[in-house]
């Protein structure tokens, strides 16, 4: 113990810097976490949040600066040192091992006592019964439905996340770092996460909560620190006094995040007409009598908790899945169940999983001509015209602001936002008749998110029919004119975006009937907006 540190400070970083090559990810950063608080760490992608989190967790060593944990000097050399000292880092990419159960995961990599190298002359038996009992006891204590004996592969993301938090606590975590924990959760799951965090805080576990969803932080965090380009812009501000708009401005510097300018779009004739879609799915509800009609210049948001038929809808609309019943027509051409026909009719897809939409090991240039490899523009007698391909890549990457616009670069080496822009560049190079975008701005920083949003508006502005499938209500609110709610594979509500209230959405997304008592709204049939 050291006298000059107040005992209610759980963690403290002083003058911490860390560089990667020439990039200075953190520049003399000060940060402190009080015991019994949730401290939000916000900032754009690349602002240094994750670097700081990794330093706290022990996965990275700072180039300079000092750390103190629970009043003592803290110099972890690796992640396991951090776990042994009671720091748990729950990342976006969850680290439960597939092929093992939750109970088996609890034992895997469990921190050892200090000074124990882990070497044993004989293998240590794994006590399955004790591990299972531990999971069940903690699940009961935390009021979580985490099954001990199921393989983690089949568990929903939210449950896997809960399992990981549970395991952290079992390992003796006294400080939690949650990195973008809500980015893949639906609203109800996010609510559950927030109440779990509040409960843990009240029981004395301080939390560093990384997110760029400001409204969520307002419900949960006590204090807030803003990072921008490796610097602390605002340190430890009390959330309840803070002006969220001002925070958003601080985060990104110049542009305003919360007020999106929506271009005026005039809906024209129907371009996408999906009628009576049925699809039985192996997991989840599939699709049950889903109809969707989208006009030129119209952006329709499909909202719902993940796993309620969204993937199937995206698959069917783009021809990649064949529905058991129903048809999909684009400009009166039947494209049902045929990806080739859909592409021919001008259907573009931005899949939610970027790795599914890009060839990570191919260059930017190769990815950009992926739909048109045999075009006479790019190939003569089957030999690729390298110069033309490069020129095309440079022009397109420039137009869609892919950074860096270097044709020979591996697509996988781009940041998430730039991968998304690259994919958008390929898909929207020629004005698509129909654009299906699943979670298009998910996980992007406000800058990149804004760029992608503008592309969606542009696609609609040029007469395309745009479908945004997303669990992120803010994203839908910013983009869509009309909203369709998907629950249990059915369309349970339709309304204009101006009628979108959290109460209404919460009810219908949970599969409850919308009772507009006291609210203006249209029961059951929705608002009367045509399909």
């Amino acid at each position, binding site marked *: 113990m050291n006298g000059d540190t107040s005992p209610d400070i759980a963690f403290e970083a002083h003058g911490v810097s860390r560089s990667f090559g020439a990039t200075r990810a953190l520049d003399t950063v000060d940060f402190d976490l009080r015991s019994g608080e949730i401290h939000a760490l916000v900032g754009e992608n690349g602002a240094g949040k994750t670097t700081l989190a990794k330093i706290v967790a022990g996965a990275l060593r700072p180039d300079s600066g000092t750390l103190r944990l629970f009043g003592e000097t803290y110099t972890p050399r690796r*992640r*396991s040192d951090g*776990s042994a000292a009671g720091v748990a880092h729950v*990342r976006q*990419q*969850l*680290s*439960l*091992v*597939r*092929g*093992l159960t939750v109970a*088996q*995961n609890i*034992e*895997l*990599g*469990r*921190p050892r006592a200090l000074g124990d190298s882990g070497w044993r002359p004989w*293998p*240590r*038996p*794994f006590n*399955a019964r004790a591990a299972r009992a531990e999971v069940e006891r903690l699940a009961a204590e935390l009021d979580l439905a985490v099954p001990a004996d199921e393989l983690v592969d089949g568990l929903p993301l939210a449950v896997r996340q809960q399992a990981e938090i549970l395991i952290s606590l079992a390992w003796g975590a006294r400080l939690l770092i949650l990195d973008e924990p809500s980015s893949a959760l639906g609203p109800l799951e996010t609510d559950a996460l927030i109440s779990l965090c509040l409960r843990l805080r009240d029981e004395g576990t301080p939390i560093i909560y990384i997110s760029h969803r400001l409204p969520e932080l307002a419900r949960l965090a006590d204090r807030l620190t803003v990072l921008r380009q490796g610097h602390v812009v605002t340190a430890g501000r009390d959330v309840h006094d803070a002006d969220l708009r001002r925070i958003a401005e601080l985060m990104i510097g110049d542009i305003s995040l919360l007020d999106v300018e929506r271009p005026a779009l005039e809906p024209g004739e129907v371009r996408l007409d999906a009628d009576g879609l049925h699809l039985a799915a192996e997991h989840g509800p599939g699709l049950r009598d889903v109809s969707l009609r989208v006009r030129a210049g119209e952006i329709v948001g499909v909202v719902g908790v993940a796993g309620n038929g969204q993937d199937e809808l995206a698959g069917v609309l783009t021809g990649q899945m064949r529905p058991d019943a129903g048809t999909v027509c684009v400009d009166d051409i039947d494209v049902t169940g045929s990806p080739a026909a859909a592409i021919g009719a001008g259907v573009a897809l931005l899949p939610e999983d970027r790795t599914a939409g890009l060839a990570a090991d191919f260059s930017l240039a190769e990815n950009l001509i992926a739909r048109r490899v045999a075009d006479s523009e790019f190939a003569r007698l089957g030999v690729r015209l390298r110069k033309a391909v490069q020129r095309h890549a440079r022009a397109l990457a420039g137009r869609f602001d892919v950074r860096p616009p270097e044709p020979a670069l591996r697509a996988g080496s781009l940041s998430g936002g730039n991968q998304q822009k690259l994919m958008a560049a390929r898909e929207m190079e020629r004005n698509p008749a129909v654009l299906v975008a699943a979670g298009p701005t998910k996980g992007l920083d406000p800058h990149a998110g804004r760029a992608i949003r503008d592309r969606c508006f542009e696609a609609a502005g040029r007469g395309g029919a745009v479908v945004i499938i997303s669990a992120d209500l803010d994203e839908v609110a910013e983009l869509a004119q009309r909203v369709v709610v998907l629950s249990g594979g059915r369309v349970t509500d339709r309304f204009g975006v101006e009628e979108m209230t959290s109460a209404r959405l919460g009810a219908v997304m949970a599969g409850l009937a919308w009772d507009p008592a006291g609210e203006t709204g249209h029961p059951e049939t929705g608002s009367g907006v045509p399909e």
Partner: protein
Amino acid sequence: MGKLAELTFWTATISGGLRLATPLIFASLGETIAQRAGVLNIGLEGYMIIGALTSLYVTVESGIAVGLLAGALSGAVLALLMVWLCVRLNANQVVVGFGLTILGVGLTGYIFRLTTPLGAERRQVNILGEIHIPGLSDIPFLGEAFLSNSWMTWLAFGLVPIVWWVAQRTVFGLEVRAVGEDPDAAFARGVDVIRVRSLATLLSGLLGGLGGAAITTALVGVFEPAITAGRGFIALIVIIMVRWSAWGVAVGSFAFGLADALGANLRNIVSDSVPTEALQMIPFFVALVILIIGARRARMPKSLGFNYVPDR
């Protein structure tokens, strides 16, 4: 053909099958651990043959116990190359594996030629005798067929539950499975992926070498070039057939051993009208069908054959 009905034919075939299964069991048990950890040792044949040569040469000088140990260690030395090239330096596992097989076969052939007088074709030691278990080994048929083995065979089958226990009931076994399934997540959990994979590969080398040693020192008593005759590859097939299960390895190896013994014994008794190759095939088919139907539950380690590169 009347001999087929005689009990002695089957007694000889079954005890021969157990004998021939012995090197396969050692090699496949080690390789099961390595593959569960995600490392595909196509060089298993190389581990075996180097173990076969080393153990015979050392046995001549220092006796069988030291000889077997030396055989196992020589396999591990070759596996160390695998660890260094693939687990540490991320070379392609298949390419290095074939390289190690060629290296093992070539090197042992070369050493054999260097140390053997011109004209001699083989090196010999006395093979292990059967252990006679009073009472049990005397049981008619059952005792003679199943319970009259050399202690090397007993050791091989005795290793089966131990390997099963390590894989299924210990923390090391969990780590092995974790790094073979999902090395990125395992690393994030705090498992030292490189260390676990290295250990698993070395175990495969040790047991592969011991399997080779079992051929020369315990079963045949002879070394000649290419004596392992592809048993390293058969072991790889056994593992896939029984889907990475230790108990399955015992059954699968016995099935192949039985097939070997049956083919050899049938050759002596059937008329020339039936090609011996055809006869040798029948039990293979039977074994295949039984095993494919029998062991469905386990699945292939997801990262088998893929190197782990931390923090890409």
